[in-house]
């Protein structure tokens, strides 16, 4: 989230699309109902189904799953052609005036540089024209035919309301009402927030869905302002924190990158990432990358990390290729993986194409599950009839099921979706013999350490180099680990005059104190300040709100630097004045930047210097045109899902995202519209959390059994009665569930053809208290987003039939 949960209350328009906040985040959604009740905000919902969010909306528009970019592009076209953009904001805070190099082009759905055999782009033509001063060239009149504004006008012209209706199925009047409501916030005194979740990410073009929405917000001047933003509503309690810490194939903590084979030295790694400004007087904050990286290495290897040994850089594993979850299971399926450690994870349920997942797990030598409860995965080898039809005697995997404490049985911190890090205190003793994850991992670490110290072995050195300096090595406490994340001064830190600003051994107050010479450590630079000299800020419980803007700046600690709204410098105009009194947030008071929040800016840089608010970007402005940072193009394009009921009506030659990666074997099991005419989409239910609460009695009571949502029209066509068992199948598997026949789903007219959609809630499986069911990921395709490799769970093809028998 660029903004935060409580800030939603400052919105005048709330747009929920690609998500269903009422269903997935009810308590955060309260700030939507508050904005409605307290300031008369309007809520609009665009979704294939009339959802729980839609139930309290002012406007609902249906859409075909997987066609979001067409819809959003239609909105962008509306804003551009009707000039409903906040000009001053757009001109100063985006790259709309930047001129793109000659040679860039877009034709029949493809940008320049496409290599069909490799399914990749050579992105070199997607860059700015660089002037003789080394800075990017701009045309502030926006008249240059290659400036971003003109390129966008051209690119988006075809996304007329009629096209949107033809591609997305949204009736024109309903679509236009969305445009009008969004456009009403282009004024500076009104703002709109966009709330989305996996309904946008889980597509082969997921990242571009979100880019489209971000672009709309930039055109309307809604980024960095209260009640605005582009807000990813994240799933798991600490998925934000775990993503921040970087337990992802290519990540280091704090969004630093893993070394790769092409970066044999520390310097070769850092050099590529220390971006120089592309415009005069810009901050380009990533210039500090090396300080964060070296401090990280100092934390990882402790005293063993020295300037001479590149701070231990060579001990780090180097990435040959990114092993996202789809590749992980592909490799496992090829029999190349020996062991899998599952920590609070249920991949049998949550990974696409269940049949492949079972086959892959069966090839493991061993599987370890660390979880407070039994998962379907840990029993993947067990026969559960049609729900998991395997022969245990043929599965040679050794399986360990280790009991782990539940959330109440340990202390520690969680980072919520709006980056707020909050402490939780231990409330109960461990259940049975369960142990904290940290203890289990410490045990494993210490046992392995002993083995390597005793027997040696391959890779002993890099492993033994890891620092493990905890008071009780077998029980590292959450407090000392949080201190480790924050970082400390290793020697007395001095300013230019030689005055000690931070004594050796004391905790750092901010990442601004980090150094690249090995004199500081700190695992997670973005968290620095959480455990500074004043102690554990995650434990702060002061819920006062002095500004009255619903900021609550003294509750917990928000990364970075306790900032509650990102890019908040943009809440003021280029002169530093708030865009309006209604949206007064961070502003220049004549001496410094101040306001309701911690400014996302160097507080002393005056407006006259023209430093842009998007300090992480070398341009200092945000990018409507993404340059080469996106794998599938600098501007979003409507691509159909890999399984689509229609050929791309706009670019018939392109099937799916042209650069999405598809493994052999997965491509072959895509279904065609001829055999599978119906669009399937998966989602979660408010009564359940993923595959977890099916083991929780009260939640099983509230929603006990897998069901399939279908329209009245489809029910009639197929002869399905409400409550009847139906079979839904794709080219990869089948599921059976009760039919919920509803008015909340309607067939749509797509490119002249009637298209039905069926809804498949994902929370059911064969372990737990709910009725046994096959997971919906028996159906889903193993193809991911071209940028993030997030699987395409939200749009695929199925067919449906009633199962004869008594109803309900």
């Amino acid at each position, binding site marked *: 989230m660029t903004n935060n949960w409580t800030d939603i209350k400052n919105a005048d328009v709330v747009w929920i699309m690609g998500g269903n906040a009422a269903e997935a985040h*009810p308590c955060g*959604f309260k700030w939507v109902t508050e904005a409605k009740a307290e300031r008369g905000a309007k809520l609009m919902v665009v979704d294939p189904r009339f959802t*729980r969010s839609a139930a309290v909306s002012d406007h609902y528009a249906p859409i075909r799953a997987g066609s979001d970019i067409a819809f959003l592009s239609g909105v962008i076209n509306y804003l551009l052609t009707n000039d409903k953009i906040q000009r001053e904001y757009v001109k100063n805070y985006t790259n709309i005036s930047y001129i793109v190099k000659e040679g860039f082009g877009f034709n029949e759905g493809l940008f320049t540089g496409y290599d069909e055999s490799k399914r990749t782009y050579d992105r070199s033509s997607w860059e700015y024209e660089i002037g003789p001063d080394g800075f990017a060239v701009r045309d502030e009149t926006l008249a240059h035919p290659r400036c971003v504004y003109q390129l966008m006008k051209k690119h988006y012209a075809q996304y007329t309301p009629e096209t949107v209706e033809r591609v997305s199925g949204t009736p024109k009047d309903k679509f236009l009402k969305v445009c009008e409501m969004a456009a009403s916030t282009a004024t500076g005194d009104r703002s709109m927030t966009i709330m989305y979740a996996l309904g946008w990410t889980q597509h082969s073009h997921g990242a571009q869905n979100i880019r489209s929405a971000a672009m709309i917000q930039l055109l309307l001047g809604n980024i960095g302002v209260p009640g605005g933003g582009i807000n990813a509503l994240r799933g798991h309690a600490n998925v934000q924190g775990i993503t921040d810490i970087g337990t992802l194939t290519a990540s280091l903590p704090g969004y630093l990158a893993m070394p790769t084979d092409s970066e044999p030295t520390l310097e070769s790694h850092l050099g590529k990432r220390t971006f120089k400004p592309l415009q005069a007087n810009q901050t380009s904050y990533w210039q500090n990358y090396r300080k964060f990286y070296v401090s990280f290495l100092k934390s990882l290897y402790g005293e063993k990390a020295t300037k001479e040994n590149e701070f231990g850089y060579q001990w780090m594993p180097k990435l040959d290729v990114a092993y996202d979850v789809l590749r992980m299971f592909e490799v496992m399926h090829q029999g190349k993986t020996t062991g899998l450690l599952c920590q609070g994870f249920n991949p049998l349920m949550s990974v696409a194409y269940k049949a492949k997942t079972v086959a892959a797990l069966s090839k493991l030598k061993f599987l370890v599950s660390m979880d407070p409860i039994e998962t379907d995965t840990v029993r993947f080898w067990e026969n559960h009839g049609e729900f998991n039809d395997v022969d245990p005697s043929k599965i040679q995997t050794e399986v360990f099921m280790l009991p782990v404490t539940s959330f109440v049985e340990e202390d520690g911190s969680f980072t919520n979706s709006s980056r707020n890090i909050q402490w939780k205190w231990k409330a109960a003793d461990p259940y049975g013999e369960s142990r904290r994850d940290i203890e289990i991992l410490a045990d494993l670490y210490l046992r392995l350490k002993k083995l390597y110290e005793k027997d040696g072995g391959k890779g002993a050195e890099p492993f033994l180099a890891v620092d493990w300096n905890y008071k009780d090595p077998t029980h590292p406490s959450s407090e000392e680990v949080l201190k480790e994340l924050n970082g400390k001064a290793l020697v007395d830190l001095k300013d230019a005059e030689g005055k000690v600003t931070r004594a050796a051994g004391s905790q750092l107050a901010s990442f601004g104190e980090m150094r690249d010479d090995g004199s500081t450590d700190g695992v997670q630079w973005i968290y620095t300040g959480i455990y500074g000299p004043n102690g554990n800020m995650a434990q702060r419980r002061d819920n006062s709100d002095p500004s009255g803007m619903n900021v609550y700046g003294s509750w917990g600690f928000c990364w970075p630097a306790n900032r509650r709204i990102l890019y908040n410098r943009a809440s003021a105009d280029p002169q530093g004045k708030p865009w309006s009194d209604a949206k007064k947030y961070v502003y220049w008071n004549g001496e410094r930047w101040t306001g309701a929040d911690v400014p996302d800016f160097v507080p002393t840089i005056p407006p006259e210097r023209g430093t842009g608010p998007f300090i992480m970007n070398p341009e200092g402005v945000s990018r409507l045109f993404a340059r080469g940072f996106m794998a599938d193009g600098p501007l979003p394009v409507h691509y159909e899902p890999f399984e689509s009921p229609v050929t791309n009506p706009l670019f018939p030659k392109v099937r799916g995202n042209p650069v999405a990666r598809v493994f052999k074997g997965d491509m072959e099991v895509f279904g065609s519209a001829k055999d599978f005419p119906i669009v399937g989409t998966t989602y979660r239910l408010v009564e359940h959390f993923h595959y977890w609460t099916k083991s929780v009695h009260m939640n099983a009571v509230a*929603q006990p059994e897998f069901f399939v949502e279908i329209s009245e029209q489809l029910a009639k066509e197929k002869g399905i009665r409400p409550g009847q068992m139906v079979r839904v199948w794709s080219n990869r598997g089948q599921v059976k*569930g009760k039919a919920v026949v509803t008015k909340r789903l309607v067939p749509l007219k797509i490119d002249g053809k009637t298209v039905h959609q069926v809804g498949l809630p994902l929370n059911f499986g064969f372990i737990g208290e709910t009725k046994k069911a096959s997971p919906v990921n028996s159906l889903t395709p193993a193809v991911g987003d071209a940028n993030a490799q997030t699987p395409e769970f939200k749009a695929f093809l199925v067919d449906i039939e009633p199962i004869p028998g008594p109803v309900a």
Partner: protein
Amino acid sequence: MFPPIPNPTTQATPAKFGEADLIRRSASNITPAAKRQTEVAKLIDVSKCIGCKACQVACLEWNDLREEVGVNVGLYENPHDLTPNTWTLMRYTEYENPESGNLEWLIRKDGCMHCADPGCLKACPAPGAIVQYSNGIVDFVKANCIGCGYCVKGCPFNIPRISKVDHKAYKCTLCSDRVAVGQGPACQKACPTQAIVFGTKDEMKKWADKRIADLKSRGFKNAGLYDPPGVSGTHVMYVLQHADKPQIYAGLANNPTISPIVELWKGLTKYAGLTAIGAFAAFGLLHHIVSGPNRVSDEDEKNAKRLAQGRS
């Protein structure tokens, strides 16, 4: 936002109301407490409800109730009805508004309305099994309940349920144990969108006015408060988008009253019945006094003897 009620304390706290605050007690004549407590109420704003069932779960959790895991029957409602364990239930209606042409998903939290004139209490034959406190809470007292099910017949909203296990009547208590220490009911506390708020009845009415004004500004010209006069008002009230048509909300009673049949049964019949029985008994007594026993005379015996001999 309606100001949240402060967190509960773990200190033992004396209850703010109790036996001394009863204004009605089933099958008993009591003298209502002289000093009435401020009336409390729960306001359920249907227009803010997302049907998440947090209230249902919070109710189970707080009241230590556990329902059986059921099945899906093609609906979102689960369980399918109120039960002795499910004291509150979300009911979902897909309503096509004929005026706007829009689909509306009307989600109503069903449960005890805590009527000012409670039909359950009126029907109850067991002394003290149903009580009404002066703050408006209508509570079932398990120890006194005999499980006859008369409350079910007395209730105009079809709320009480009789347990098949212990044969006692159950329904929402408005979390009388929480209210007694200054907390709101568990459902209210949990409700993510403040579709449920709790306070004094006056506060709730005022709050409802604000909500109704908002709804009217959004085109719901018949938005209004549901506080039915037929039962002298309730201590659970609804804000409805279409207050002119309560029945579209999963059959919410248009103008609920205690059934005239129940009134007749618990009114006239009760008194007339005993009178009739008394009258018959009295008549017999009187008759006996006036006319004395009807005895068989010697004559009769002789006649009989004669007859019998005649035969032999």
